[in-house]
């Protein structure tokens, strides 16, 4: 197989520092060597490549933008590049790393006690512990404020009741960050595997993110120590802060998926001969490639500045909404177009485009659907919230 060629039409690499480039190089090599060779088989068999977890920990991608506790302490552009390179391999692998870092390690880091940080973060950073994040419920997706899961204080304990759905890593998690209402206010809790009253079921029969574990979490009079409350959480803004972190990574990651699809479609169209010449010589094919090429370049410029804003603490959730919405939409369109350009070959696992296309259906939907991000931007420009 020919080596992967990324897009850098506007010389964005020149905007990167030496360490940012080295991070990108290291993760790209890792993905080429360790993720790409087996990922189609995992996708087909609906298995998660668990053997990657300690290797991802050793490489340092888990919670890579956090400081201390065994984390690499990278800036947000380097973190974004990691997500981009991982998702070039597969959205399922990137999802694992996003959940671990942005949705489990981040809330413990931002809202936890020093004791909680010491206990969980170093093991989550190496991959010895796997984490999951329970916010969405069967009947509450885009409207998490309506959640039913609740926690009742009982002496030195809280008692949790409720169900969570569409939870990445759920069945394999050692640690769950779970959101529940205490007297009507959303708070975050750390629930450890094996706690009586806490169980999980695997969500099967999905055509997307097949190389990723998706689960339901069940809490039935689940008694957890009061010390497992993340004390700094309070209200919906706490889980939303986590989601902003994760959506930031997705905005970058989607470009990795888009570049994988584009690279595949470009190489295929140059080598595929029909009517005595490469299909790349036909105007319809060139128009598709030019469109993909332009959208990838626009997305790259957007996330680069998004990352610089985040490093300067000027990032607002609305910025992330725009980038997540745009890049996921474009990555899905690019994957669909690439699938089309490969003809019948595009529906096989021999090429990555079908897998990326199926994955992007989830990535466009999770962490705020395309439409919800549209309404966030609508509110930004009009001052009127359409969803309240």
């Amino acid at each position: 197989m020919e080596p992967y060629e990324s897009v850098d039409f506007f010389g964005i690499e020149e905007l990167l520092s030496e360490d940012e480039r080295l991070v990108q190089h290291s993760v790209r090599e890792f993905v080429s060597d360790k993720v790409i060779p087996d990922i189609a088989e995992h996708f087909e068999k609906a298995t998660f490549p668990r053997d990657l977890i300690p290797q991802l920990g050793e490489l340092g991608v888990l919670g890579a933008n956090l400081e201390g506790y065994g984390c690499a302490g990278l800036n947000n552009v380097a973190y974004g590049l990691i997500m981009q390179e991982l998702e070039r391999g597969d959205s399922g692998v990137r999802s694992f790393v996003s959940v671990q870092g942005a949705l489990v390690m981040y809330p413990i880091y931002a809202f936890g006690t020093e004791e909680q940080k010491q206990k969980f973060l170093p093991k989550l950073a190496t991959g010895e512990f796997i984490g999951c994040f329970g916010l969405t419920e069967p009947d509450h997706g885009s409207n998490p404020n309506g959640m039913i899961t609740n926690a009742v204080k009982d002496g030195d304990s809280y008692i949790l009741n409720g169900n969570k759905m569409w939870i990445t890593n759920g069945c394999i998690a050692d640690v769950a960050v779970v959101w529940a209402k205490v007297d009507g206010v959303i708070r975050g809790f750390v629930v450890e595997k094996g706690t009586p009253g806490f169980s999980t079921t695997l969500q099967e029969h999905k055509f997307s993110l097949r190389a990723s574990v998706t689960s339901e979490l069940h809490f039935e009079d689940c008694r957890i120590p009061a010390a497992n409350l993340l004390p700094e959480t309070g209200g919906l803004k706490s889980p939303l802060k986590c989601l902003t972190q994760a959506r930031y990574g997705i905005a970058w990651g989607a470009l990795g998926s888009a570049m994988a699809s584009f690279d595949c479609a470009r190489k295929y169209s140059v080598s595929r001969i029909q009517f005595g010449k490469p299909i790349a010589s036909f105007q319809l094919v060139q128009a598709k490639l030019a469109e993909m090429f332009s959208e990838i370049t626009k997305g790259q410029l957007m996330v680069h500045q998004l990352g610089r804003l985040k490093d300067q603490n000027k990032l607002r959730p609305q910025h992330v909404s725009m980038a997540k919405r745009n890049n996921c939409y474009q990555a899905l369109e690019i994957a669909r177009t690439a699938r089309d350009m490969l003809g019948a070959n595009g529906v096989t696992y021999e090429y990555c485009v079908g897998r990326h296309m199926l994955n992007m259906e989830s990535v466009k939907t999770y962490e705020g659907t395309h439409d919800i991000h549209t309404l966030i931007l609508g509110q930004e420009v009009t001052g009127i919230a359409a969803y309240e």
Partner: protein
Amino acid sequence: MEVAVCLKRVPDTASKIRVGEDGKTIDTSDVQYIVSPYDEFAIEEAIAIKERQGDTQVTVVTLGDTAAQKELRLALAMGADSGILIKSDSALDANQVARNLAAALEAKSCDLILFGRQSADDGSGQVGPMVARILGMPCVTDVVSVELLDGAVRVEREVEGAREVIESSLPVTLTAQKGLNTPRYASLKGIMQAKKKKIEEVEAQPFDARFPVKSLSPPPARPEGKIVGEGVDAVAELVRLLREEAKVL
């Protein structure tokens, strides 16, 4: 102990190479650079020795323009301790490179100097042995295993149909063959730590060019294939041509 690794920044092996306007060097526009792959084995071996032995300093050295800092930084991120960049903006011949490397390493009194067996671009395979000669060290090329003994080293080489075991006193220069090890990825923590490590810069000295490149040309275009006919009727003619013209049968 003191270990040095000499590495070279080379065009990515996936790059499409075009000859430059001077007809002697390659056109470097649109070329991505990497650490020459055999040199990565040398870096990995040095770091592995440091981890096994303890109390070992690994210095990485390269000759090139300022951009070659990136390749040194990668080696530092993998775990080397410090770097030396011998700055030169022009292409030097193997003699000039070897003399400059030897000059930079002389004061270090290295116990072990490691090279890749050859660079991925020029591939002359002679800089390692030349540095050893200049510094008066023995040199073993193409090693596939390295074991440190007390004041000596036992290495293995793969030779036609056999495996050769050689013991050498220290100091020694070794060149790394594929199979020596699997180079590690630079970890992200390693990359952050490497930002604090020192790269010393020295100017290249003007040693004589002994065998400069006079010209560089791309391989001749492959001649067009010949279609001798179609179907069963063509078989006899094809066999005749393979036997008499191509002489492969």
